[in-house]
């Protein structure tokens, strides 16, 4: 057989590989379809010729790539990587690790599947439109939020992206339907009144406020798990009906997906009578009618159940109708034997929806049916839930109390970010049990039927063993891994790797940090010291001449004649009336609509004295080793007073900030001031000196006092975060002022430690990104030597090198005015 021949030749080929790689190859081949084995060997061989670490990365990612993009996709994706590998080993390795933008992006393009992350915002806005309240969309693996809808992280059920998107859309529309059509408007008082009226409930319900009405209600039932299942089936059925009725546009896709769900229902063979009964109810909820082979003894109960369920298939059906139907169905189902016994007679049953013929079931109908069957009291067999209907997602029973209105974006952001943190995988059934807290039912999940868990692989025909090979599952945090968010005020950013000309994904972590408050003295002293400059800057700012200022007409005095007014005036005079001589116009200050973020370099290198001469005579020259700076800085900062005339870069930065604040308060632009420093890519710190939203106050003054040199200068992420902050502003004009010593450098800011080029390119890229996002940047430095770098970093963007603070007033308003008009 050819199979054997292949196996033999594969074994032979494997011998040509180094043993470790051969082992890895064998492991991978067990995970991927046979048809790609030979090709896989070829590709591995080709990669091996270029770099052996790259082969390992390739092999680790490969099952995932095949799962997403298929064998053809693997080929294209791999070719691209090989090409890169030929140019640069480091970049190639990064590529095969799926750690770069280009790599991830290409894979996404090659795959017919749709990733939740790529459509999350779209779906969220869609849901917001449908129900008018913000509803976060979370990965189905994370059912922790009380008022969210849950979608799988990845869908590739169908061969094309639009079809897979439609699946998401139907799933979202169903789940949001619970909000729109009032599933959560359930009120326990109404429901219990109903029970009292039916004679089912005696005595009051305990007033437990810790849980929701719905849960409290369901817990009233002896078998609350059964009650929950019935309620879910009935309510989902109602929501399906209403959704299709109100959203005719999606109706066709919706029905198709329902039919698919129906075709995937498990056969009834191994069920207990009660399970079989519930299973048919689920099928009824999917289609309303059908012909199925069922235990003959269930015919009468099923006919009754079908008529009871019809009740919610109506445009007017409300949550109360569902509740009533559920109570009745529970009365019926709880009496059907739950133990597995042999079923003697099977007979097909045909159930039809009798929507037109109104039917109000009564408990006596139920009693009648049951009496004939002579089933008595409930039996104690464990309850098994019917297999889930996948497109219906997760029906959270909790949010009954309130659907919270929009959260502040901050909180939402936080949720989103946490969504990527590892969370114990749990099947939905287990989760429901947790929620319901109704004892030891874990056994339920052992049922083979229950393996229809919520998730991307659940219903796909072939089992997909590759999923455990996903690269992100590794937890050894070696040098080259993407980061995760670890606290509410931390943010992840990509970093530009110029050698690979690609982004390293989620490479840097920026933390927002408070800055201790010193005293306002520094602020006041600076103003005193530079009283003359302050006045000058102020004056210049006041006459800042933005191009877009508005012409105000009909004034007594102004820049020039207002011709219209003049004509009127002359005519008036001619007519013999002393018209008002408002015949001038002038440009007035417009309401400026500008936000500015100042990024202040707080790296250790700013400790350098500004003037070479001074520097040489005062302190050691610290090449560019910031650790030595740091030590020196501490000794220096602790007490030894510097002569006033010897200013360090940081001093000038602080002083110019003081002067700037003065000026900005004059013209009233909104501005934020952030200091930044870093210690490796995981620790880029952004100190909040004055947040954009914050008003200027003594506290801001006091924080300026505490600006001291810290550590490294990873400019890229700082710029990206400041850009993000500006993006949150609604102003028309957005500006970023980067005040630094002009030298980006940080621990491993570059492939080989302090590789200047890398840092410079990343910084430059960050500024370009800012420009793309509508943020205009200006770099400012006091260090003559900074000139060289700034030139490269800024390219055609504005930058300015100042000799000393005296030149600030002259240039600032010009720059600022140039920028902000």
């Amino acid at each position, binding site marked *: 057989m050819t199979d054997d021949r292949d196996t033999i030749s594969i074994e032979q080929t494997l011998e040509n590989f180094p043993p470790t790689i051969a082992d890895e190859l064998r492991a991978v081949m067990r995970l991927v379809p046979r048809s790609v084995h030979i090709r896989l060997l070829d590709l591995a061989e080709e990669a091996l010729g270029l770099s052996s670490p790259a082969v390992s990365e390739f092999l680790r990612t490969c099952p995932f790539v095949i799962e997403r993009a298929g064998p053809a996709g693997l080929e294209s994706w791999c070719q691209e990587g090989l090409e890169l590998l030929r140019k640069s080993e480091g970049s190639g390795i990064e590529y095969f690790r799926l750690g770069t933008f280009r790599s991830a992006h290409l894979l996404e393009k090659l795959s017919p599947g749709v990733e939740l992350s790529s459509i999350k*915002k*779209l*779906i969220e*806005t*869609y849901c*917001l*439109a*449908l*129900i*008018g309240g*913000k509803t976060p969309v979370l990965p189905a693996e994370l059912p922790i939020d009380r008022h969210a809808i849950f979608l799988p992280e990845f869908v590739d059920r169908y061969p094309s992206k639009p079809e897979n998107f439609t699946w998401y*859309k139907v799933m979202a*529309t169903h789940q949001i339907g619970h909000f729109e059509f009032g599933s959560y408007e359930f009120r326990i008082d109404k429901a219990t009144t109903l029970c009292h009226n039916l004679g089912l409930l005696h005595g009051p319900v305990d007033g437990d406020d810790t849980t929701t009405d719905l849960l409290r209600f369901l817990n009233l039932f002896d078998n609350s798990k059964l009650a929950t299942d019935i309620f879910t089936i009935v309510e989902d059925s109602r929501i399906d009906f209403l959704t299709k009725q*109100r*959203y*005719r*546009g*999606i*109706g*066709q896709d919706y029905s198709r997906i329902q039919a698919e769900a129906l075709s995937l229902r498990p056969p009834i063979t191994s069920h207990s009578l009660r399970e079989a009964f519930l299973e048919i109810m689920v099928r009824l909820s999917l289609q309303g009618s059908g012909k199925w082979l069922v235990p003959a003894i269930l015919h009468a109960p099923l006919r009754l159940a079908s008529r009871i369920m019809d009740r919610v298939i109506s445009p007017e059906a409300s949550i109360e109708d569902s509740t009533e139907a559920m109570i009745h169905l529970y009365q019926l189902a709880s009496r059907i034997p739950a133990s597995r016994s042999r079923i003697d007679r099977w007979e097909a049953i045909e159930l039809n929806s009798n929507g037109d013929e109104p039917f109000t079931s009564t408990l006596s109908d139920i009693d009648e049916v049951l009496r004939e069957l002579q089933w008595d009291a409930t039996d104690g067999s464990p309850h098994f839930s019917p297999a889930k209907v996948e497109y219906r997602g997760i029906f959270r029973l909790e949010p009954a109390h309130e659907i919270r209105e*929009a959260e502040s974006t901050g909180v939402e952001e936080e949720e989103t970010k946490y969504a990527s943190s590892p969370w114990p995988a749990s099947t939905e059934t287990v989760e429901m049990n947790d929620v319901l807290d109704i004892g030891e039912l874990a056994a339920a999940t052992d049922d083979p039927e229950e393996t229809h868990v919520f998730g991307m692989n659940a219903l796909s025909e072939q089992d997909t063993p590759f999923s455990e090979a996903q690269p992100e599952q590794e937890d050894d945090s070696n040098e080259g891994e993407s980061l995760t968010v670890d606290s509410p005020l931390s943010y992840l950013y990509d970093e530009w790797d110029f050698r690979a000309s690609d982004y390293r994904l989620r490479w840097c972590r920026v933390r927002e940090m408070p800055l201790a408050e010193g005293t306002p003295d520094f602020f006041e002293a600076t103003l005193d010291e530079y009283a003359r400059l302050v006045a000058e800057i102020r004056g210049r700012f006041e006459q800042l001449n933005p191009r877009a200022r508005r012409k105000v*007409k*009909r004034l007594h005095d102004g820049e020039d004649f207002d011709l*219209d007014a003049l*004509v*009127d005036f002359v*005519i*008036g005079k*001619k*007519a013999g*009336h002393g*018209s*008002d001589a408002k015949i001038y116009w002038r440009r007035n200050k417009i*309401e400026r609509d500008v936000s500015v973020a100042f990024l202040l370099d707080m790296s250790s290198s700013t400790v350098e004295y500004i003037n070479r001469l001074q520097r040489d005579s005062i302190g050691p020259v610290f090449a560019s080793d910031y650790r030595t700076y740091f030590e020196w800085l501490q000794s220096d900062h602790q007490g030894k007073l510097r002569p006033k005339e010897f200013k360090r870069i940081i001093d000038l930065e602080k002083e110019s900030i003081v002067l700037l604040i003065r000026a900005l308060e004059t013209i009233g632009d909104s501005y934020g001031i952030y200091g930044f420093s870093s210690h490796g890519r995981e620790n880029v710190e952004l100190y909040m000196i004055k947040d954009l939203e914050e008003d200027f106050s003594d506290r801001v003054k006091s924080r300026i006092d505490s600006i001291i040199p810290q550590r490294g200068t990873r400019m890229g992420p700082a710029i990206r975060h400041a850009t993000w902050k500006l993006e949150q502003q609604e102003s028309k004009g957005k500006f970023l002022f980067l005040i630094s010593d002009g030298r980006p450098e940080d621990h491993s800011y570059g492939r080989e430690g302090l590789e200047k080029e890398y840092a410079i390119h990343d910084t430059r890229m960050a500024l370009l990104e800012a420009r793309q996002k509508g943020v205009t940047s200006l770099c400012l430095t006091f260090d003559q030597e900074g000139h060289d770098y700034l030139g490269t970093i800024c390219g055609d963007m504005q930058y300015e090198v100042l000799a000393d603070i005296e030149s600030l007033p002259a240039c600032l308003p010009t720059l600022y005015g140039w920028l902000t008009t």
Partner: protein
Amino acid sequence: MSAQGQGTYREHVVEEYIITEEPFYLPVKDEVKLFEAAYSQKIPVLLKGPTGCGKTRFLEYMAYRLGKPLAVVKSRSRKAASSDGQRAIPLITVACHEDLTASDLVGRYLLEGESTKWIDGPLSRAVKAGAICYLDEIVEARKDTTVLVHPLTDHRRILPVEKKGEVIEANDGFLLVVSYNPGYQSTLKDLKQSTRQRFIAIEFDYPPLDLETEIIKHESGVVETLAHDLARLGEKARNLKEYHLQEGASTRLLIYAGKLIVQGVAPRRACQVAVVWAISDEAEVQQSIEEVVSSIFE
């Protein structure tokens, strides 16, 4: 063409309507009753509400209702024509903008040969004719223009004509109505308290679903179910306001969509061009609204 003479190029920004039959207007709340009461008590009215929600239509309807049949002053010469014993109430609309001056409203001298001639502005004409004068988007006007209406809108009911050294006492039928859309103006442009406190404010919003369905159906001629779907689309799109949109989809836009559908444009496409495109330029938001459209319309 009303007030164009030699020596000046200025046109008066007066829109004039000739209303021959009853405008279609569906009352939403008690606005008709309120307006009637205000009119008979000569209390100036401020109409507050988003664009395209029916303010102008309401006023047309009230002008018609309060003084049917209605004759509209086309020019000064025709003013006297409101004869035949019945009290007709003209409606004179002025769209306010930042360059609107007092003279634009009150009147000015124009050169005529060697002499000059006084021409009344729309406000003077309304005051004399006993018209309802509608200053649309009052906040857009210059502050010194806005204060002009102060003596007209308190017990004095007079319009000073500075240039002529006269005051005009308002005709009994005169009423000043202004509109104001609180949505998109910045707070800086807010009305001055002393202006604001001269008006009662009737608040408008997009009509509730059922009414809006009926309005869309009537105005565009689409069938009931489609009108209902359009109204629902409006409701959904308005949910995005505050988060993603400056303004929700107006009734006017929904009517446009309906009209396109009546002309044979496919509903999804009609909504796309009339609604989706008009209310946002953000690609992602547009896409989301399109998904809503494709959920609702077949």
